[in-house]
C-alpha cells in the first residue's frame, strides 16, 4: 500500500496544490481590502457586506457552486463577459476550481486579517504620519508588516479550506481528472468504484500529511512574524 505515488495520484496532488495556492494568492488582495474596509471604516451597508462575506461559511457548498455555475458559467452574465473581454473561462476548468476555493476561503481570510488590523495600535500610524509617511507608505511600512501574522493565518486558513473544498468545486466545475479533480474529488471517485478502497485510503493519508505540513509550516511562520513584532517573551 505504501509504494510510490502513481502518476494519477501525483496529478491529483499537483492540481490540489496549484488550485489552493492560486486561490489563496488571487483572493489575498480582495481579502485584505475587505478586511481593511470592515476594520477601519463605518459605512451604510457594512453589516450586509459583512454578512455576505460570511455566507460561504454557513451556506451548503453546493449552493455556492450552483450560484457560481449560474453567474460564471459560459452563458452566465459574468462568465460570458469575462470570456468575451479577457478570454477567461472558469467553467469546467481548474481556474473555476480555484475561484470556488477562493470564495469558500474568503470569510476565513477576511476574519483573520480583520482581527489583526483591529489589534494594531493606530497611534503607531499617527507617529508614522508625523515622520512623513503618506497613506501608501504607511500601509506598506507599518500596517501590512504589523498585521502580517493575521495575513499569514488568513492565508493558511484559506489554503486549508481549499485543500478540503469539495461541494462547490464539484458543482461548479465537475470532476474532470487532470483538470478539476483535486484530492477530495479523487478520493470521492475511488470510493464510488468497486475495489477503490486502497487507493482512496492512500489519498486520504496523503491529505492528512499535506494538511499537517501546512499547519506546522504556517504555525512556524506566524510565530516568527509575531516574534519580530512583540519580542521573544510572547
Amino acid at each position, binding site marked *: 500500500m505504501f509504494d510510490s505515488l502513481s502518476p494519477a495520484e501525483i496529478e491529483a496532488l499537483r492540481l490540489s496544490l496549484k488550485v489552493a495556492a492560486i486561490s489563496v494568492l488571487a483572493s489575498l488582495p480582495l481579502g485584505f481590502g475587505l478586511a481593511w474596509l470592515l476594520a477601519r471604516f463605518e459605512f451604510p451597508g457594512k453589516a450586509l457586506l459583512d454578512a455576505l462575506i460570511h455566507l460561504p461559511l454557513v451556506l451548503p457548498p453546493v449552493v455556492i457552486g450552483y450560484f457560481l455555475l449560474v453567474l460564471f458559467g459560459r452563458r452566465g452574465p459574468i462568465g460570458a463577459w469575462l470570456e468575451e473581454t479577457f478570454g477567461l473561462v472558469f467553467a469546467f476548468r481548474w481556474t473555476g476550481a480555484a475561484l470556488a476555493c477562493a470564495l469558500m476561503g474568503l470569510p476565513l481570510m477576511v476574519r483573520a486579517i480583520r482581527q489583526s488590523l483591529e489589534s494594531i495600535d493606530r497611534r503607531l500610524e499617527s507617529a508614522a504620519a508625523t515622520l512623513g509617511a*503618506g497613506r501608501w507608505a504607511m500601509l506598506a511600512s507599518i500596517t501590512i508588516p504589523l498585521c502580517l501574522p493575521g495575513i499569514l493565518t488568513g492565508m493558511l486558513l484559506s489554503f486549508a479550506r481549499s485543500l478540503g473544498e469539495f461541494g462547490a468545486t464539484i458543482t461548479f466545475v465537475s470532476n474532470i481528472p487532470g483538470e478539476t479533480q483535486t484530492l477530495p474529488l479523487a478520493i470521492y471517485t475511488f470510493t464510488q468504484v468497486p475495489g477503490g478502497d486502497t487507493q482512496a485510503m492512500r489519498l486520504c493519508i496523503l491529505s492528512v500529511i499535506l494538511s499537517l505540513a501546512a499547519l506546522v509550516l504556517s504555525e512556524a511562520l506566524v510565530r516568527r512574524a509575531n516574534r519580530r513584532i512583540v519580542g521573544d517573551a510572547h
Partner: protein
Amino acid sequence: MRIEIDLEKTLGAFTLKAAFSGDTAIIALFGRSGCGKSSILNLVAGLLRPQRGRIVIGERVLFDSASGIDVPAEKRRIGYVFQDGLLLPHLSVRQNLLYGRFFTPPAERWADVDRIVELLDLAPLLERRPHRLSGGEKQRVAIGRALLASPRLLLMDEPLASLDASRRGEILFYVERLRDEVGVPILYVSHEIGEVVRLAGHLVLLSDGAVAASGPVHELMSRIELRHLIGRYEGGAVIEAKVVAQDLGNGLARLAFSGGELLVPDVDALIGETLRVRVRARDVSIALSEPRDVSLLNCFRCRISEIGAEPGASVDVRVDIAGTPLLARITRHSAERLHLAPGKEVWAMVKAVSLDRHSVGYS
C-alpha cells in the same frame, strides 16, 4: 523661530480655544490633565483638525482656516515625541531612527545621523529591537527619530511621564542638550512645574481648554492669581540670576540678581552663566526685623507688594526685592500676628538647601 498658534476645536463636550505665540527655544504648555495640552499638540501636528484657527511656524503657514490652508500631517515636518515613545515594534532602533529621514526631502535634511546618535548616546542601541529597550532608552530613540526627520518644530508630550525618577533626570539632561546644541524649537507639554522651570523660557498656562496666561516663565511664576493653576505645593517665584562665584570649599555657588545675591548649593554651572532658580513659596519665611543667629543663608530686605485673597489657613504674600518679585506662603495666623500689609518693609528668608537640583534651570 517664532511660533504662532490659534486654535479652536470641539471634542465631544470639551471645547478647546487656545491662542499663544512665542519665540524661545522651549515653550512649555502646562496644566492639569484634561486641560487640552495633548490636544494642542495633536492639532499642531496635524493629527487632529481644528474647526478654526491658524498655525504658523517661522515663515510657514501650516494651517489657516481663513485661507483654507491645511498642510497634511505627513507634510508638516513637525517632530512628535509621544509620552510612551511609540517606536515601530517591527523595526530595529536603526530603522526607527532612519524612518522619518527617509521621507524627508534630501535638501531639507539638516539633522546629521552621526551627530544625533552621539548627542543622545544611541550607538550601543542601534541593532536592538524596541522591546529590548528600557523606558529611558525608548524615549531617547523616540527623540532621535523625531530629530532625524529634520523637523521645523519638535513636540514633546510629557516625555518623562512614563519614566522613573532617575531616568527622568537622564532624559531632562538630553532635552537640555538638544535645546542648547540643535536649535530646533520645542513645544513641551508637562504637568510638572519643576520640569518647566528647568527647561523652558516661555510658559503657556492652560486651564479648561483655554490659555490662562502666556509669557516668560519667571513673570508668570510670581503672579499670585496664577498660583492655583501652577500648584501651591511646587509653585514659587523664579529668579533669573547669574553665577558670580563657585565656592568650591563649601559646595555653594553665589548667584547675583537685581535684588542681591543668592547662595545655592550644588550648582553645576560656570561663572557667568545665567540660571533660573525657582524659590518655592512654601520655602520662604517672612520676618519683621533682620534675622540674626539663624542658619538661613538667604535673607533679603524687601517690601510687600500683594497679599493673596483666597480663603483658608494659608496666604500667599508677594514681596519685591528691589524689583525682583518673590512669593512666600505663610499661615494666615502669622500674617495677622505680624500685621503684614502691602507696602510694609520686611525680610524674606530662603533656606539654601530648599533650592535643590529640581529648582535650578540652565538657560
